[in-house]
């Protein structure tokens, strides 16, 4: 048996693999969005832009300062995360008491600014980022060829996602964080510096997006516009998964990536829209999202 529904298995597996790679990025981004929303009540529209900045930080690091991939994996999220923290202190902080829609609008404006600046500096076209030496080549699994870098992206992102989940759901720090989400005043009364925690959480969420950006740099073209289309899909993922759940964000991200990959095999024209169609169906059947509570 080498075909399913008339499509050769290696083709299906190849696309599912690509879908899983995209799904890892969806998972990391929606995870960051969920964490930020939980604590700050801000839907970070600039998340895609930070993802793009993460990829560019790696690219610029490599070309200008000779920073290799492995250092970029650490440095780029750090730099972009600190940048995010500065923005939180300067701008976002003033909006916490207002309608969350203002946060959405402000970060939308920020996304436009970042995109515009990068487009002015680097043009709209994409630039390649070389796959690091250690991750070149591919495994031959017998039934399919698996490029090592793609396997690495999937393993690395799932690990990062699970670690984040563990920290939030299973550690003391995470418990404090969740408590601050429920009732910041009370947590503050226990002597915990909530504004500092909010600031660091925002930084961490941004760093996750930047990390996804670095991971994606060798598999896609690094371009100023790479974030703006992604963020819309990630929003749909978040609506499907329900923003309240960390695990929900991870699972829906990965699953939807694979659904997208599978659609590329059976009906390529719909691969761009399948996530939105699923979102519409979920809205009809379970308006609160698959993992959400109303």
């Amino acid at each position: 048996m080498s075909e399913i529904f008339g499509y050769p298995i290696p083709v299906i597996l190849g696309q599912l693999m690509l879908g899983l790679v995209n799904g890892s990025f969806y998972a990391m981004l929606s995870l960051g969005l969920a964490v930020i929303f939980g604590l700050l009540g801000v839907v970070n529209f600039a998340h895609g832009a930070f993802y793009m900045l993460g990829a560019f930080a790696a690219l610029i690091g490599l070309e200008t300062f000779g920073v290799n991939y492995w250092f970029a994996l650490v440095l780029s999220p750090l730099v972009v995360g600190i940048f995010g923290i500065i923005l939180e202190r300067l701008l976002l902080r003033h909006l916490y008491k207002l309608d969350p829609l203002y946060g959405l609008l402000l970060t939308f404006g920020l996304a436009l600014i970042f995109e515009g600046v990068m487009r002015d500096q680097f043009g709209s076209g994409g630039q390649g980022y070389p796959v690091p030496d250690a991750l070149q080549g591919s495994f031959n699994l017998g039934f399919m060829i698996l490029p090592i870098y793609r396997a690495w992206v999937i393993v690395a992102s799932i690990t990062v996602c699970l670690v984040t989940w563990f920290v939030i759901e299973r550690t003391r720090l995470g418990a404090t964080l969740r408590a601050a989400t429920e009732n910041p005043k009370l947590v503050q009364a226990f002597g915990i510096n909530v504004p500092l925690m909010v600031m660091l959480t925002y930084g961490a969420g941004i760093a996750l997006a930047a990390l996804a950006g670095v991971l994606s740099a060798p598999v896609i073209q690094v371009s100023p516009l790479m974030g703006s289309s992604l963020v819309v899909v990630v929003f749909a993922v978040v609506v499907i998964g329900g923003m309240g759940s960390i695990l929900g964000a991870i699972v829906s991200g990965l699953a939807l990536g694979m659904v997208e990959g599978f659609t590329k095999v059976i009906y390529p024209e719909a691969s761009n829209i399948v996530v939105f169609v699923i979102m519409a169906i979920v809205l009809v059947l379970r308006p609160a999202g698959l993992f959400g509570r109303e």
Partner: protein
Amino acid sequence: MRRSLFLFYVVLVIAGLAAPWLDIYPVYLMTLYSFAIFACAFNLLLGFGGMLSFGHAAYFGLGAYLTSWMVTSQHWDTIPAILVGMLAAMLAGIVIGLLAIRRSGIYFAMITLALGQLVYFVCLQAPFTGGENGIQGVARGTLLGLVSLRNDIAMYYFVFGLLVAVFLAIRRIVASPFGQVLKAIRENEPRAVSLGYDVDRYKLLVFILSATLAGLAGSLKALVLGFATLTDVLQGTSGEVILMTLLGGAGTFLGPVVGAGIVVTLQDTLSDRVGSWVTVIIGAIFVICVLAFRRGVVGEFQAWLDRRRARA
């Protein structure tokens, strides 16, 4: 309506009627009016209904595409072609509205954004939209066979008349019992539910109205400039209409018109000189608006007038 306000409106209308005889490029004004209609339609939803749609370019774009297609491929005349564009926007508004009103607040924004992107991809791939090229060479036709709209002056009065009509219609809608219930829902939805109002029906209706008028704006823009392209359905266009409304003043009547004027003028004067910095400037205005200027130009002006009156 207070007498001073009425007089102010009269002055505005006279200025609008006189504009083509002054030395102003009529196509620029007509583009501005099309976007002003778009922003007024958007404001009906955001300012009076309290719903932030992040995908309004979908209706604008559908209006533009359908009208252009009816004119170029089906050789329909202007008015019926515009009606088809509005109908398409209305149908999209019904479907998307039904889905989006199932959630509120930021979820509503995210859902409309995602479904707007869906419409974009459909337009990108549909056979009749001309893909990346769009539909070019859209002739303006006639006004019911009586007046040729190829003439810029005739077209100008047609678009201006529609802007005035939409403006008055929105004033009327907001003042009606329907508009009052809408305001009640915006202020306190649970309360409106407990008073026995079918909240979802009101929300859906205002959503459809807004989408239909956005479609009209798109149709007019396509006729004025003679083309419909993917830019019309793009996420960026949804952002622009939000900015126009926010900058002018959401929930004020004249705000969206002022906002459209500022944004269209900015783009018109800046795009040749600064290239991709236009995006940066628009983003920066967004940030400033949200941080320091949440009532918008007209809103702040009204607040200032109120403060002065209170002191006097």
